């Protein structure tokens, strides 16, 4: 398999084969520039915290990071699809909160936990379908539709709970989703791993993933190719809301309670992870690997600053600065993430 080089943009039968040089390592790095730059950032952040603190580079801490960042990883994977179509979903934090409170309420009412999970995922699909309908079929900008969703869904969660958090019986099997360990790995991390592997395959190796990228690059071309672009877009919002619902279930199970204030600003954290990973907000360019690295970078910064006994309020400052620098590097050095059409 030969990799594409960026030097072969010559046409015609006149170009001799001699001018088509083999792809060098540098070409490959440039072709995946956005992933390379976030990988470097991730490594630098990890090395710095390993040197500054003793506790960072220990198995329990690393597993804890993965356990805590499972909701972020899961939703960021779905958000990569949304952003690659050129859309955005601002409602994921609110969906997470609504699902956390409703699952706690349902468990308190005595419903069996498998049924609760199925109901919550179905609720996510329903919310996503509503968003998708307005975005894909009524052509209202995704930003506005999901901003409305953010407000309404959080409002429903607050209304149901009256602002209180609802406890979940710790004896319930439901909490194993958030707390149990399997083969030495936390269950939330395992769930996240499965979702990420699935997202990677769907994004890169299925017709659906191809159309998601195509829609972001040139929706008219995809429509002319006979693909139902509206349903594809609708489905992408279903994916993101279902993933947010799954994240809500995991969070409620881990914390043992459902709070309507959960996931405040979660949507921004997710979008930050996706953009940090090199997915273009203009659509057409997305990478699941980059998203995973972006999400882990955000998680490691938060964890490392606490271990280094720094003020936790530094986290948003450092995260924001790194986002700007990483995207700027992509733009300048690799011409990847932010390039428009």
């Amino acid at each position: 398999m030969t990799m594409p080089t960026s030097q072969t943009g010559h046409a015609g039968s006149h170009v001799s084969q001699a001018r088509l040089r083999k792809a060098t390592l540098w070409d490959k790095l440039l072709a995946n520039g956005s992933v390379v730059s976030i990988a470097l950032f991730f490594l630098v952040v990890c090395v710095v915290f390993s040197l500054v603190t003793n506790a960072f580079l220990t198995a329990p801490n690393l597993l804890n990071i993965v356990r805590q960042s499972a909701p972020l990883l899961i939703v960021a994977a779905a958000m990569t699809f949304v952003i690659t179509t050129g859309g955005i979903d601002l409602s994921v934090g609110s969906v997470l909160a609504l699902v956390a409170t409703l699952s706690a309420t349902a468990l308190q009412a005595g419903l069996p936990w498998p049924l609760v999970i199925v109901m919550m995922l179905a609720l996510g699909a329903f919310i996503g379908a509503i968003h998708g309908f307005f975005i894909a079929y009524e052509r209202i900008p995704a930003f506005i539709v999901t901003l409305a969703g953010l407000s309404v869904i959080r409002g429903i969660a607050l209304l149901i709970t009256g602002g209180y958090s609802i406890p979940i019986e710790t004896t319930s099997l439901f909490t194993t989703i958030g707390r149990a360990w399997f083969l030495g790995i936390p269950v939330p991390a395992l769930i996240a791993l499965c979702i990420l592997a699935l997202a990677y395959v769907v994004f890169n190796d299925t017709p659906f993933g191809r159309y998601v990228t195509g829609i972001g690059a040139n929706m008219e071309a995809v429509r002319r190719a006979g693909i139902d672009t509206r349903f594809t877009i609708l489905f992408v919002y279903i994916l993101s809301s279902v993933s947010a619902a799954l994240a809500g279930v995991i969070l409620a199970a881990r914390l043992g309670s459902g709070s309507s204030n959960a996931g405040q600003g979660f949507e921004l954290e997710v979008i930050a992870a996706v953009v940090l990973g090199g997915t273009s907000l203009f659509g057409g360019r997305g990478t699941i690997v980059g998203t995973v690295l972006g999400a882990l970078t955000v998680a490691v910064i938060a964890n490392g600053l606490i271990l280094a006994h720094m003020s936790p309020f530094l986290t948003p400052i450092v995260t924001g600065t790194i986002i700007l620098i990483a995207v700027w590097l992509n733009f300048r050095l690799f011409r990847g993430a932010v390039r428009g059409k």
Partner: protein
Amino acid sequence: MTTDTYRVRMTGICKRYHPIQTLDNVSLTLKPGEVLGLVGDNGAGKSTLSKVLSGAVIPDSGTIEIDGKVVSFASPADARAAHVEMVYQDLSLCDTVDVAGNLFLGREPRRHVLGMPLLDKKTMHALTRDMLDRLGIVIADTRLKVENLSGGQRQSIAIGRAASFEPKVLIMDEPTAALAVAEVEAVLELIRAVSARGVSVILITHRLQDLFLVCDRIQVMYEGRNVAERRIEDTSIEEVVNLIVGRKFAARSAHNGHETGASA
């Protein structure tokens, strides 16, 4: 002459955009495998006429026959069903998808793993390589993203994609505009290859020297009307220029153009 020797026969096509009569009783005929050059100044109605044939514009009156059957196109989908394809360069390619992905957009070869439809990338790239070779399109790697290709290569992919739908008629509007010299040659070569496969081609262009390299026949339009039709061997670039501008015109560009055309 019998009508069934024609692949396309458009007669008495009229279209008025208030207050301008864009098409005034225009006719057009096209035989199988023929390359027709459609020329005229800006606003002469060539693009509108091609849009009527591709279903994008509905005429006020007139009839269209394809292979002797009267058809009426209410949308580009209807025209496509009748095997009339129009090449839109920038409307048909996804920049961030690779060459093979663009050629097979919407009809990707699939394989199923655990019931999940996956792209059969190996087959797709092999079929793409075949298709490119058959049409003489030179692209080093079918995994290149389309955004990294030159204008001529992009145009070739767009034409190749349209040609792969087994069209009877292929309409190209300015396929060689803004291309480098070698690329124009490659695109013209591709047009020859497509017509050799029995596809009728309508070529709209301002580059008159191109017409003399690939067309069998030229139809000249002037202010919404047909003004002339010439077999390519019966005409010269000077005559075509005069027909386009609508008067006797000792155009220096015509002489230059002729030289370019002859030496190319």
